[in-house]
């Protein structure tokens, strides 16, 4: 595999070409002499570990950032893309990794943003065009809804619609599938195919190799800022899915992993009824908030060493369940027992101390304090407790010592213990959170989407750690929207809908169909 520009087949010129594009940030080279050719009618998949530089590359294409070196050619002419506005004018539309809609505005208002400021927003025209595009592509969104009331999947559709309304010639999708249900992912894949057939160029970033193989015409792999390989459409067509995956794994990790790396052996262990549950929840209820679902009558039990999965469409109360268990959210009824001891009425810190741990899915939003050093972030849930604090005084030596141990044990890649945690990549932040929740006497751990946004290596490592802690005798509650993950990890899977558990199945051979039936509202 060569990283030089591949030979161009006649009749398909590059729409956008990157030539030796380099981007440096303080202390880091995010992109290092990357060459890339993006063509009309093609879905170009970008793969790479967390922090490989994919989003940075997109940032330069969409005018958010300027390359430190190298140049970008649009339609064959070198074009510095100076601003997002310029990028839009060039026909480059982007759906960013992080949502870029104004939550307090309606869908229509968001779509209208960017018009000439002295004009009245052309709502009528928008309506007609949105309807037309929606019809041809099978997208339907309520233009009058306020964005903050939409689900993440719906918001994503709004962003795609916005890119298309702008007559984009190049559509960039940065990890757009990470928040979608399996069905949503298939729909998006089909949409990408249709758009490519209509002559658009598409850049699609994902961490899921199967998606890359299924939807991509061309695949490029980034590693530590460099492009380490590319699979051309011709080759792609000639390989089967397994071969493609194997080849990508080799490019990304240098070694051939055995078989499908995401296909882990299923744990089908039996837990005798006699073993007392470690985590037992009975009739848990939480009142609904504004825009968040409540919980009602949630009961389950997890035995030591068992992994119980919670499946369901995002936003059906999974987060509320996790927060209620962790003590972040006040329950209005029901009991939570850890090893027979009632947790009700205890605060977050007390529950954490007793071994009830919660690994949040919102790593930067609530899991960490981005501007604080790595070392302190390990102990945020233990503030004030010895040996890290004595008589309320911070014991810097003890903290640094223990943090150093955890950094080594969990393979956290950080320049130093003093580095603000916000500067680390998502995978490394996740390792720190895992270390924090596992350390010192975890007995029951609640995971909320533990592998969301992680690259393959980090995903596998995280899953292994979850299995390890279960093997070590802890009770694990694994909340995930990724059915494959649940099927690969759990002993039993419960399905959550509208704030209640609608059924639980053992993870046996027919689990996939039974969970699937529960999720679409049928009896297992």
């Amino acid at each position: 595999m060569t990283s030089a520009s591949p030979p161009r087949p006649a009749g398909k010129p590059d729409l956008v070409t990157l030539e030796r594009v380099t981007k440096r940030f303080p202390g880091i080279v995010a992109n290092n002499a990357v060459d890339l050719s993006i063509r009309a009618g093609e879905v170009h998949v970008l793969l790479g570990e967390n922090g490989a530089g994919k989003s940075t590359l997109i940032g330069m294409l969409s005018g958010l950032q300027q390359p430190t070196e190298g140049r970008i050619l649009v339609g064959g002419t070198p074009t510095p893309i100076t601003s997002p506005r310029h990028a839009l004018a060039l026909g480059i539309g982007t759906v960013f990794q992080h949502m870029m809609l104004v939550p307090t505005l309606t869908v229509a208002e968001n779509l209208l943003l960017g018009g000439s400021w002295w004009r009245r927003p052309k709502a009528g025209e928008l309506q007609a065009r949105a309807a037309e595009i929606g019809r041809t592509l099978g997208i339907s969104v309520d233009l009058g809804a306020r964005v903050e009331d939409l689900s993440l999947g719906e918001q994503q559709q709004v962003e795609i619609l916005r890119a298309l309304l702008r007559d984009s010639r190049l559509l960039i999708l940065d990890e757009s599938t990470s928040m979608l249900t399996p069905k949503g992912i298939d729909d998006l894949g089909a949409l990408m195919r249709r758009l490519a057939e209509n002559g658009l160029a598409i850049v699609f970033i994902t961490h899921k190799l199967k998606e890359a193989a299924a939807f991509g015409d061309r695949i490029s792999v980034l590693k530590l800022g460099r492009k380490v390989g590319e699979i051309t459409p011709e080759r792609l067509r000639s390989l089967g899915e397994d071969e493609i995956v194997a080849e990508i794994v080799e490019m990304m990790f240098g070694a051939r992993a055995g078989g499908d790396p995401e296909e882990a052996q299923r744990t089908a262990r039996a837990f005798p009824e006699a073993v007392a549950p470690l985590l037992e929840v009975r009739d848990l209820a939480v009142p609904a908030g504004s825009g968040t679902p409540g919980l009602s009558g949630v009961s389950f039990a997890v035995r030591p060493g068992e992994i119980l999965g919670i499946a369901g469409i995002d936003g059906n109360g999974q987060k509320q369940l996790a927060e209620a268990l962790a003590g972040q959210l006040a329950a209005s009824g029901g009991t939570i027992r850890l090893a027979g001891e009632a947790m009700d009425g205890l605060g977050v810190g007390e529950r954490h101390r007793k071994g009830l741990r919660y690994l949040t899915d919102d790593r930067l939003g609530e899991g960490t304090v981005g501007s604080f050093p790595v070392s302190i972030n390990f102990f945020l849930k233990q503030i004030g407790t010895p040996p890290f604090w004595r008589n309320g005084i911070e014991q810097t030596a003890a903290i640094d010592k223990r943090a150093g141990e955890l950094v080594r044990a969990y393979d956290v890649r950080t320049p130093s213990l003093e580095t603000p945690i916000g500067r680390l990549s998502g995978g490394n932040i996740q390792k720190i959170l895992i270390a924090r929740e596992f350390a010192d006497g975890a007995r029951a751990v609640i995971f909320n989407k533990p592998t969301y946004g992680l690259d393959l290596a980090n995903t596998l490592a995280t899953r292994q750690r979850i299995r390890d802690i279960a093997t070590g005798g802890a009770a694990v509650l694994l909340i995930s929207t990724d059915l494959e993950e649940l099927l690969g990890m759990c002993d039993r899977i419960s399905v959550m809908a509208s704030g209640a558990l609608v059924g639980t199945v053992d993870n046996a051979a027919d689990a996939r169909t039974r969970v699937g039936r529960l999720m679409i509202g049928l009896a297992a």
Partner: protein
Amino acid sequence: MTGLFSEVFLGALLFGAITAAIPLLLAGLGEQMSEKAGVLNIGIEGMMIGGAYLGFVAAFYSGSLWLGFLFGACAGIAVAALMALLCVRLGLNQIVIGIGLTLGLEGLTALLHHFQFSRSYPRLPAAERTEIPLLADIPVLGPALFRHHLIVYLAIALVFVMIYVYRRTQLGLNLQAAGDKPAALDVAGVDVIRTRTVAVLFTGAMAGLGGAYLANVGAGIFIPFITNGAGFLGIVLAMLARGRPVWVLLGALLFGLCLSLTTAMQVAGINIPTDVIQMLPFLAVMVMLVAFGRRGSLPAALGIPYERGAR
């Protein structure tokens, strides 16, 4: 001998309430736009006093109140331009710069006044009043509400212009986006810095105009520190109004009415210590805050400088 609460007196009280409310209204409307766009404009007091000074100088030397208003607004814009450069473009701390500008402008105008006017204390002639036909003849309310300088009606009309701008125009969308999620506005192809700069300059213009009104119509004279915290009251009104211009108007009027009420009570000879009476307007605002100040009212990015692509 006329009764104490004669028509004329009540009319004058209401008239005074409106005169006192207009500078607050203008400052509040201005601040509201900055806040909508995500800039906490603490320098508004400085913009007001700058506008008061230059507005007075212009009106005094030209003899035209309108020139005074124009120059007042320009002075406000000039101070706001400095604020926009430092806080919006360079992203310096909005509170440091805001307080700095306020202190500096207060000192500078007092200094200039000392060298220029502290021997002569020039005063302007009475501001011309525009009577609204028919309405002006309603007893009590007529003289109180419909016999003001034209700028008063314009200021009140501005409330409705602002409602239109915020609700119905592209600029309104842009401003709200700049305050709630500037990155989203940026990737939609609108320059956040420019949007916020426009908002800050508008704030400056309104504050300057408010200052000029205060000096030229409200007092007819400029003296040092004449604004006396009116800008800070504007900030409070803007925050209370939660993005709705009508509330700024109501708040300003309420405040003006409270001021007039204190005068009325005194003239009526009610022997309550004036210091107690004079807490009334502030108490009224505080009560409003306790009653209506629910959560979630301010733009998410308020006070946070925007830098494209920053992490």
